[in-house]
């Protein structure tokens, strides 16, 4: 009897501590999560306030809430930055990179994974070795190359040097290595040549890897700063990050409008994330498993 009662007590206290643990776990997550996003919330809140109000109430939680929200700051941003042009420049160059990136790197990755030919191993180690090469170490000669070709201030300078990517080749190589050989043999018995086998049979079943490389490279290029900053010097050819950076350092410095510009520049990323979250997260995660 006695021992049974003791057992019950222990059980309920165990449950109690479990509940407390769960509460602390949630509380911890909420506090850390709020601290994590608070700068972003402040940015959005400030973008909706008039300039005179964004630094009022700095000592209270009210600084995170726009009291009389208005879109005036956004109108100012669109008045002062030619956003249509900036977005056109940015989406055009990223779109072109991605188009060629997906074709050029996927066929290369496929050949390395599935074809037997002389130099295959050499090419694989060539691609792997180039992966550690820091772009920043070759900006100067690359700039001279662009100047000699007359590509400075043209979309070509942003696109052509960045089509081939070792990392994308590796992603495709990994994926295509997993495609069963029986499938390819069956196609070749049916008389398909290696090239049409790829386009007609392999490509349609490989949408995941294309989506993953697409979103990873979209995000990477949306964030491009240093190279566009070096080769796109004209106001007309500015990309989004350059526009944001120069808006920050051009008078009149209206902090509320700057915050609005930051929000506008983040919108395409957020839209992409909402629609392609699965592939994006998987892409980040799978890169780690392989390494």
């Amino acid at each position: 009897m006695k021992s049974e009662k003791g057992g019950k007590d222990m059980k309920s206290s165990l449950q109690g501590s479990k509940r407390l643990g769960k509460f602390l776990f949630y509380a911890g997550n909420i506090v850390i999560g709020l601290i994590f996003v608070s700068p972003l919330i402040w940015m959005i809140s400030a973008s909706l306030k008039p300039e005179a109000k964004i630094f009022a109430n700095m000592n209270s939680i009210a600084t995170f809430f726009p009291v009389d929200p208005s879109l005036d700051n956004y109108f100012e941003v669109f008045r002062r930055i030619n956003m249509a042009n900036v977005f056109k420049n940015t989406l055009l160059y990223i779109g072109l990179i991605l188009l060629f990136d997906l074709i050029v790197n996927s066929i290369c990755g496929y050949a390395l994974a599935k074809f037997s030919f002389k130099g295959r191993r050499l090419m694989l180690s060539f691609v792997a070795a180039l992966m550690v090469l820091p772009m920043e170490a070759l900006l100067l000669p690359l700039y001279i190359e662009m100047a000699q070709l007359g590509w400075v201030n043209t979309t070509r300078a942003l696109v052509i040097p960045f089509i081939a990517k070792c990392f994308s080749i590796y992603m495709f190589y990994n994926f295509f290595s997993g495609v069963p050989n029986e499938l390819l043999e069956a196609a070749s018995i049916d008389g398909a040549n290696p090239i049409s086998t790829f386009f007609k049979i392999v490509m349609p079943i490989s949408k995941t890897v294309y989506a993953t490389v697409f979103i990873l490279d979209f995000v990477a290029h949306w964030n491009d700063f240093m190279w566009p900053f070096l080769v796109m010097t004209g106001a007309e050819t500015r990309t989004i990050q350059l526009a944001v950076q120069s808006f920050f350092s051009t008078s009149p410095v209206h902090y509320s409008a700057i915050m609005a510009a930051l929000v506008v520049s983040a919108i395409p990323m957020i839209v992409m994330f909402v629609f392609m979250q699965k592939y994006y997260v998987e892409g980040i995660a799978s890169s780690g498993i392989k390494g």
Partner: protein
Amino acid sequence: MSNERRLSGRQKSERLAAYAFTSPAIILLIAFLVVPMCYTLYYSLFKYHIIRPDDMRFAGLDNYAKLFHDGNFWKALKNTAYFTVIVVPVQCALALGLALLVSKRFKGVAAFRTMYFGPQLTSMVVISVLWAVLYNSNPNTGLINSVLTGLGMEPVNFLTNEKTAMNSIIFMSAWQGAGYQMMIFLAGLQGIPSSLYEASSIDGASKLKQFLYITLPSLKGTVKYVIMITMIQAMKLFTQPYVMTQGGPKNATKTMVYYIYTQGFQKGNFGYACAIAAVFFVIVVAMSLILQKFTNEE
């Protein structure tokens, strides 16, 4: 016999297809990675100024000798090393901690994951501009200083004091980057079979012991990869100091890539800047090789 010939015909067409498929990527990699890299090394041996491109004179190792006596170069090297040495452990530990917080399935887990990943949805330029405002030394306009003074502390000149400027950039960078590494850790954590934890909790192992003896050893490969990518990225630091401090105050946030930019693009000393770039290249490659070797031997 005819069968054999057909086979070799297929091999031949496969070889042709292989060259057709690989050559665009390989040609582009050579043209825009290998060739510029060679030119970096080549130009570094010349006296080459952007205003006088025709007056390019061979200078042997003069640029490297000059580099050796250039205080600004050593300062940039030191700053880059400091940033890397601090930000890598801080950011990786933060990312692992966050991953542990949201690795189990529970109500709202997706929302918390998105919150921690949130800073990744904006670019480094956006984050740098935002934090330059948040770090403002006046507590009436800088959010962080207004919180500090609210807690009874003295306001800090985060970006205008040479002692705190780099640390401020480190803190911000870790905050922005951790969400990305968290996702990699999450995948690693999910790959650990739950039977391992079940067995050890029957044996009465504490959470801490489970973390030390199950979680960490199982994550070894992931940790190695995360450290590697964080380190390589850290050594390339440029955007944050460019947007937030212009390398100041007193060069406290001038990094190697920043110095390549200053010498090459602002001052036009292409030859000299290429020597800096060559040293930078060697350091990055050497560090990745050392890390790889070091972690493989264990």
